[in-house]
């Protein structure tokens, strides 16, 4: 089996023919994806700056993976339910999560950030792979409700070694669950290369579980969109799960606490810089004269405005009241939790 990437747009911005997939998007839609990716990168850069300035506890940069996330995120239907890991800021943007809400967990003012039911977008999951069985279970609920919906769950090459991921593959296959697994292979799990997690291309793991796996150029937003759309349709129609391996690259550090110069060489990063997911769409739009002369400037200005608003929102984000830790631990009050609340309140009262 050839380990070929599904690609509809080359790194140079040339359209590529594929026997199984074709681009269904018009110029306006492609410009929309371009806009999304530019904004997501700008949000990410602003968040990195905020962390460097001591305003965030941590940030997990998404740079390089914008196409993998916008292509899949924009393929979702409004009631499909998404289960992210912790780097899916692009998918979060596609689901309409306000950028400031994405950063609450990183500013450490909250352990969540938004109402997952409102956006059909779960909270970030930091324990690797834990969200994957959640997506399968939710999909089993969809089946029982007889709904034409699907779930999409994101995890990485590192998490692909987790037992929960393997178990979820078994379940999704056995129950023909309407779930799309999006494995973003960004080549590095902090300092560990993908070769440590697997001896075969990751998409081929699906074979062993009895459902299709597809390797996609994760830096090609058109391919990511079409493959995701097809997989979601298949899931909604009762065809069962699909594994999409988005072959991409983490251009930045694992998080702002990481130092990638200790474990990877610049030459490798340079190779991937030439495969940038945003530049190739820009080249396509320019070559096909699909946009007005000042469109790119307008998009950049819009992204800048969003980043500035985000900065203001984050700086205004204060620590919650101390008693916030006691809220919602239980649906009904638990006496031990409430004893803690009473103690904190009494202590504060005494200190006044």
């Amino acid at each position, binding site marked *: 089996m050839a380990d070929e990437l599904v690609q509809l747009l080359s790194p140079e911005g040339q359209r590529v023919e594929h026997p199984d997939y074709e681009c269904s998007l018009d110029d306006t839609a492609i410009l929309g994806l371009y806009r999304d990716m530019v904004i997501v990168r700008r949000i990410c850069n602003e968040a990195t700056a905020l962390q460097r300035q001591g305003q965030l506890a941590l940030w997990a940069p998404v740079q390089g993976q914008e196409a993998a996330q916008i292509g899949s995120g924009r393929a979702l239907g409004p009631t499909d339910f998404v289960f992210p890991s912790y780097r899916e800021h692009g998918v979060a943007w596609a689901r309409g999560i306000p950028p400031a809400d994405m950063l609450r967990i990183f500013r450490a003012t909250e352990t969540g950030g938004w109402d997952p039911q409102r956006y059909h977008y779960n909270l970030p999951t930091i324990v690797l792979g834990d969200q994957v069985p*959640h997506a399968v*279970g939710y999909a089993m609920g969809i089946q029982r*409700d007889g709904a034409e919906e699907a779930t999409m769950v994101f995890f990485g090459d590192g998490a692909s070694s987790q037992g929960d991921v393997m178990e979820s593959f078994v379940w999704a296959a056995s129950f023909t669950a309407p779930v799309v697994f999006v494995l973003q292979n960004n080549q590095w799990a902090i300092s560990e290369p993908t070769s440590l997690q697997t001896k075969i291309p990751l998409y081929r793991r699906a074979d062993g579980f009895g459902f299709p796996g597809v390797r996609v150029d994760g830096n090609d937003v058109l391919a990511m969109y079409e493959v995701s759309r097809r997989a979601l349709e298949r899931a909604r129609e009762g065809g069962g799960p699909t594994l999409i391996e988005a072959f991409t690259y983490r251009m930045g550090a694992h998080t702002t606490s990481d130092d990638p110069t200790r474990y990877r060489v610049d030459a490798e990063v340079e190779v991937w810089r030439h495969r940038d997911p945003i530049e190739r769409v820009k080249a396509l739009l320019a070559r096909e004269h699909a946009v007005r002369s000042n469109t790119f400037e307008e998009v950049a200005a819009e992204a800048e405005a969003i980043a500035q608003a985000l900065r203001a929102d984050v700086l205004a984000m204060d620590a919650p009241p101390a008693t916030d830790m006691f809220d919602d631990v239980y649906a009904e009050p638990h006496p*031990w939790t409430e004893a803690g609340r009473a103690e904190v309140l009494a202590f504060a009262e005494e200190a006044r």
Partner: protein
Amino acid sequence: MATTTMTMARALNEGMRRAMERDAKVLLMGEDIGKLGGVFRVTDGLQKDFGDDRVIDAPLAESAIVGTAVGLAMRGYRTVVEIQFDGFVYPAFDQIVSQVAKLHKRSKGAYTMGLVIRLPYQGGIGAVEHHSESPEAYFVHTAGLRVVTPSTPHDAYWMIQESIAHDDPVIFCEPKSRYWDKGEVDLDDPGPGLFDAVVRRPGTDVTVVAYGSMVKTALRAAEAAAAEGTSLEVIDLRGLSPFDTDVMAASLERTGRLLVVQEAPPYASVGSEIVATLSERCFYSLRAPALRVAAYYVPYPASRIEDVYRPSVERVLDGVDRLMEYDQ
């Protein structure tokens, strides 16, 4: 008043049947729970009556059993998970403490984690390794979970229904050595609340707190003690998180002596917490230091010697003697 006699295993079965009849969102999931009816037959006949969409035979992967139940809860289902044996819950430990316990908090209440994790626990059945453990303290230690354990068929029937209806996740510990004990079940009156402790036998000299399998052991000890002129008040804890401090304190304020009996080792255990809590609350009522009669700090032993490991009537009586000696 409709009462009927049945085993605890049957009572759990009937309780789940009622819950499933009442609420179409209630599902059961676990290994071998369908045609086989579970290795203890607790789910016997339920798949036949409710279908395999609602009584789900799970692939053999405990973490995914709990993990998918979390996903089902996010979709509005109430899944009753059966973990086949206590010793097999640890593969699911991460899902339970990292996800089940935290998602209501993290989502500010948007998610209702209304799932029940049924856990046949404790020993005394002559089983092989990993089939006789008492892991309840791990879960009691974790904020976000609730933990209960019935000791009678009546409580099993009602507490499983109340746990399923509860909007918080409940670890439901079933004393497997008592599955086949028969008892009266009142089908109309649930009696005490889900986390309330119950005085099973009133007494005046020593407050004996027990739960799960040890309630029966404590009651036998009370009978033997009575023959020797010592009056034990036996409390069935029922709720482990939270536990019912009021009922225990009211008793201890009368007796002045506290003995906690449990199958788990004593260190950092439910018994430790009861002793600490009641020492603080009832300090001036104590006539002796609170004692624990418990298992030993070893892995569960080969079951041919489990009767030494598990508290026996004799060891409970020895604890009573040690408490009474403080007066002399």
